C-alpha cells in the first residue's frame, strides 16, 4: 500500500485515491486538423516509463482535489507532489538500474 502525501490532507492510504493516468498530456490545439492516427495517439497512447513518471491523482475520499505526482515506477518512491497546471519538476534521481533482469514470474531471462 502506497502512503500518498495529499497536498491538502497529508499522508493517506492509496485506497483513498483515484489514479488519473499520465500527467502533462496537452489537448491538441486544433483537434480537427489531426489525422486519425495522431488523434488515436493523443487519446490512447501513453508512455510506459521505467523510472520517474509524472501522473495525475485525485484524493477521491478526502478533499476531492486533483494533483500531480512524480513517482518512480520501479521503486514506488514518491519524488514530488505538485499542483495541477505546474510544470514537471526536474528530478535529480533516476531509477536504479536492475542488475539481473528478472521477469515478473521470477524466471531469469
Amino acid at each position, binding site marked *: 500500500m502506497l502512503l500518498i502525501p495529499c497536498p*491538502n*490532507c*497529508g499522508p*493517506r*492510504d492509496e*485506497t*483513498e485515491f483515484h489514479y488519473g493516468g499520465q500527467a502533462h498530456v496537452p489537448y491538441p490545439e486544433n483537434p480537427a486538423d489531426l489525422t486519425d492516427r495522431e488523434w488515436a495517439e493523443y487519446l490512447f497512447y501513453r508512455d510506459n516509463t521505467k523510472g520517474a513518471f509524472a501522473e495525475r491523482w485525485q484524493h*477521491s*475520499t*478526502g*478533499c*476531492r*482535489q486533483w494533483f500531480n505526482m512524480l513517482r518512480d515506477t520501479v521503486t514506488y518512491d514518491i519524488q514530488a507532489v505538485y499542483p495541477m497546471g505546474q510544470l514537471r519538476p526536474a528530478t535529480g534521481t533516476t531509477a536504479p538500474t536492475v542488475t539481473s533482469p528478472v521477469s515478473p514470474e521470477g524466471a531469469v531471462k
Partner: protein
Amino acid sequence: MADTAALENSKKIQTLRTSPASLLWAAFEAGSVAGAVELREVPFLTMAGIRVDPGGDAGKRLGKRTGGLPAASGEVRSIGDTAALWLGPAEFLLVAPAESHDSLGGEIPRALTDALGDAEGQVVDLSANRTTLELSGPRARAVLEKGCALDLHPRVFTAGTALSTEIGGIPAILWKTAEETYRIFPRASFAEFLGRWLLDAMREFASTEVP
C-alpha cells in the same frame, strides 16, 4: 415561516420518516457495552453542502452561522450545535440539529441560500444524504482502529477534528466531538453495512478480557 398550516403538515409528514439505520436500533442497544463502547444512530441531522470560496464575501456571509468557515483539513468551526466541517479547500458540510431544518420551523438551508445570493457557489440540502452514527466510550478508538487507517491517537486526532476518510472500507466522515465520542457520517445506503460492521467490531468488548 408564515404558512403555519404548511409547517404543521410538514411536521406530520416527518413522523412517517424512517432513518437509514433504524432497522438496527435494537441491535445497537443490544450490542452496546456500557462502560466500554456504545453505538447509536442520531437520525435526521440537518446537513447542508456548501461550495464557496471561503475568502470571498459570500464565504464570509456563509460562515457567520459557525464563526467562519474552516480553513484547513480536519478543522471544524462551530457555534452551539451548528458546525461547519472542512471537506475540501472550497467545500464544507454544515451540520445542525434536526429542528434547524426549514421544514421543521428552522432556517437551514433557506437562510444559507439567501446568504449566498447571486454570488459564485452553491448551497445544497444534504440532510438525507448521510446519517449519523455515534460511537462513544473508552474503547471506541479501539473499535475504529480495526477499519480506519488514520492515526487516531488523541495526540494526533484531537477532539473537535473531522476528517473525510475510509472506515471499514467505505467512505465516511469521522468527527471526534469529544475525547471519547465519535460521530461517523456514512452515506445513507452504507448505513446498514457500517452499523453491522461496527457491531461486529464491538463484540469482543462484551466478553471479559482474557489475560
